[in-house]
């Protein structure tokens, strides 16, 4: 198991690979991440993070944006987002 807290470079541009899609579905009651033969329900925080993983914005800019938007300490945001993105990358649901 790789370390889910290992730092992600600030200039990384995380993105969803082809075959992974974040989508909203009324019938299933919210946001879901669709992946090869897997479905993950996404909570509101995960949605706000994953939405920003477009492959165009840098990891550093995503952290800044989330810290500003939610008026939360940057260090706390950095730790939480790192863990989520590392976990998704381990499952091949995200490219860093």
């Amino acid at each position, binding site marked *: 198991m790789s370390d889910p807290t290992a730092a992600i470079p600030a200039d990384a541009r995380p993105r969803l*690979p082809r075959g992974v899609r974040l989508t909203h579905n009324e019938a299933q009651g919210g946001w879901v991440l669709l992946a090869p033969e897997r479905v993950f329900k996404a909570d509101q925080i995960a949605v706000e993070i994953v939405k920003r993983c477009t492959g165009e914005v840098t990891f550093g800019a995503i952290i800044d944006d989330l810290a500003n938007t939610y008026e939360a300490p940057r260090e706390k945001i950095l730790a939480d987002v790192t863990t989520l993105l590392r976990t998704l990358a381990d499952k091949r649901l995200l490219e860093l």
Partner: protein
Amino acid sequence: MSATTNNRGYSHVASSGSTALHKPLGLLAELTHRCPLGCPYCSNPLALDPRDDELDTATWARVFKEAAALGVLQVHLSGGEPGARRDLVDITAAANAAGLYTNLITSAVGVTDKTIAALAAVGLDHVQISIQDSEAASADHIAGYDGAFARKRALAAEVVRLELPLTVNAVMHRANIERIGEMVDLALALGATRVEIAHVQYYGWALKNRASLMPTQAQVARAAVEVEELRRRHHGRIVIDAVVPDYYARYPKPCVGGWGRRSLNVTPAGKVLPCHAAESITGLEFWNVREHSLADTWANSPAFNAFRGTDWMQEPCASCARREADFGGCRCQAFALTGDARAADPVCQLSPDHALVKELAAVQTDAPYIYRRQAAVLRTPSARSKEECPTPDS
């Protein structure tokens, strides 16, 4: 079609365990039962739907719209070999237009490079290619088709070149269970991001060939250790999903995530089933998409309500603490082995019939496979030529 789809799970999604009507997440669309391969563990029924009974493009398009409205998120375009349908690109485009995540489950034989490029262009999300063994001669022998292995490698390369995500489906049994590591290496070399190490599940043709496919208990134990080791070694590079051989299990699998709860299956001729093997249970009444909407069928068809929830259960299931974790196991397996579809799945150690499973698992032979074949039908020469699958480009 692979032998694992009955066990395709959505375990990552929170489940409430209630007996309320759930929304299905997945639709297995069996576009055709025609297939050039003859895999002896095919999970298709022994009585295969003939081509003349297959649903047309427009009906599939309607089914996809109804499925999306019902809550279905993913459609698995399967068969038989879906590449045998001349309208596969139109069917896939219709599924994509309905908003569904589209997954092509193919043998690779009959899907040309031109077809896969066209499928990618209309929004295909994911491709699963079955590979019968890591050794070409053995793979072609298991598939009953010379050259299948080479074609699979070529299509896999094309899928990766088109930047479509690739899963390798490796069905394991006594002839190839010693080569799980080689299968994972092959999947990595092909550029797959996911591999299914799926032990044969004994339904359909696999049930017919059970004694020729059954591994030994020692082989299964070694395989389980090996899969754990491979997961550690390849963590973050490839996702390894494993389907355990349930004849050697202590508890049953939560088959299809619970009857009429997570998924549904439409046969080539339009019957709507709770799982692809459900027709093997005699006495169930299935509805057809030609006569009923999918929503009506999901909520009201007798077959879907037969084993939904827990009210149908007998002991030891009815009072079991695991009844909403594994739903009594597989109804088709209970019926096939005990003759009673309401019985506990006999692979469960709590089942009064559990000893029977041990006896059956001990029956192992090296008898030749009975290959999966469409029943011989007397046809005119012109009709027969239409039956043939397109040949690969390369």
